[in-house]
């Protein structure tokens, strides 16, 4: 069982100033370039919920993938430096939007927490940095929504319920695996569906919600990734989905850009973009221009964006 409820409110209240609450926020590279819409929509939606995502003043790339080799400690350093930045802010928790960043930061932190030998070596290596022992908890925005904000409060902010929309939440890999980094049940996650329902849409259950899209294999094996995304999209469609909500910029890219031309296009959005729409926020903050033409067309067709 995950004990994801234990820190409810603690972070928000500890850092709240007036009505606004503050959370340390780590964006990662892609959110500043190819997934700006994920960031702008998240900041706007969270602000509407009374949560300020405060970007770390200084951060570096997390390395995108957690290093799996026992002797490869150097690749944890990039992630850990970011956590040290969080600690310097006097915070013990950092939120990410990108699922890859979440996984990398989370797991690197587990190394520092649970492996004394590796902690010692890494601290030694970063001799210009203060010693770090895994004090900072990395959370994904979905956890914040579920555990700190709560569905009720989100529901209260819904101005335009996404009525009659059938949306499938797609998790991919890095939010759920391994077990030690999972934000929800590894095999039967609920959090995306719960959010989609809270926003007024019906959440489509489909068996490929946790299937890998092929990830970085798109660089060298675009055809293989296309096979994967076709399987994921057709499974979603078969189960009645009109659109897919994602939480990872790489999934978003793969599902958008490797869609087969010969099938009916499937709109792909970040879950935060759905929040922007449901909360009735300025469509600019949603950054829908960066989504595919088909996605925009579908949103317009439904009267969800101007």
């Amino acid at each position, binding site marked *: 069982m995950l004990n994801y409820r234990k820190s409810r409110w603690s972070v928000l209240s500890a850092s709240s100033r007036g009505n606004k609450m503050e959370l340390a926020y780590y964006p990662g590279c892609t959110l500043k370039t190819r*997934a700006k819409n994920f960031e702008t929509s998240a900041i706007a939606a969270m602000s509407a919920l009374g949560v300020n995502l405060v970007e770390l003043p200084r951060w570096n790339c997390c390395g995108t993938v957690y290093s799996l080799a026992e002797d490869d400690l150097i690749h944890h350093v990039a992630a850990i430096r970011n956590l040290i930045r969080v600690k310097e802010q006097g915070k013990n928790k950092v939120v990410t939007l990108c699922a890859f960043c979440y996984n990398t930061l989370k797991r690197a932190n587990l190394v520092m927490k649970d492996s004394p030998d590796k902690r010692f070596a890494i601290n030694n290596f970063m001799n210009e940095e203060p010693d770090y022992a895994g004090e900072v908890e990395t959370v994904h925005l979905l956890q914040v929504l579920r555990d700190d904000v709560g569905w009720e409060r989100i529901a209260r902010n819904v101005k335009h319920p996404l009525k009659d929309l059938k949306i499938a939440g797609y998790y991919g890999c890095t939010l759920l*695996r391994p077990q030690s980094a999972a934000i929800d049940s590894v095999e039967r996650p609920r959090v995306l569906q719960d959010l989609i329902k809270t926003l007024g849409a019906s959440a489509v259950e489909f068996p490929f919600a946790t299937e890998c899209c092929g990830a970085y294999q798109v660089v060298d094996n675009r055809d293989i990734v296309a096979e994967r995304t076709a399987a994921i999209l057709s499974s979603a469609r078969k189960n009645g989905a009109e659109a897919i909500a994602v939480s990872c*910029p790489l999934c978003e890219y793969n599902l958008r850009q490797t869609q087969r031309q010969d099938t009916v296009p499937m709109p792909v959005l970040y879950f935060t973009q759905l929040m922007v729409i449901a909360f009735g926020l300025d469509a600019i903050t949603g950054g829908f221009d960066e989504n595919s033409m088909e996605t925009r067309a579908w949103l317009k067709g439904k009267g969800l964006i101007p």
Partner: protein
Amino acid sequence: MRVELSSKKLRSNFVKKVAELSGQNLYLCYQCGKCSAGCPMGFAMDILPNQVIRLIQLGLEEDLINSKTVWLCASCLTCTARCPRGVDLSKVMEAVRLLTLRKNKNYIEPSKMSHDTIAELPQIALVSAFRKLTG
């Protein structure tokens, strides 16, 4: 071809290195095949994930080095999550990749990729692919 097995082969440097780099006891695996059953890239692999472990158990380095399988692994950890014996196969895959990469042999050559491709792909894809597939 008949493959000759010997304790020498079973305890070869290759087998030791894989165990060391992955931190996994490969002999925990009892070859149930669940990893292969769930692998999202299995359809494109020439040898299956369970056979990767098997070949290491037998010390058959050549077969493994000549296979595409470890390069197709996307580190999605589906196998890891479902393994009944608690073997983290994704770490084994990484170990085998590293044994090639550390010989200064890249699986993909960033220098040979077109500017358009690089411009089109998100950073997250490029960085992770370079991390996994180049030395």
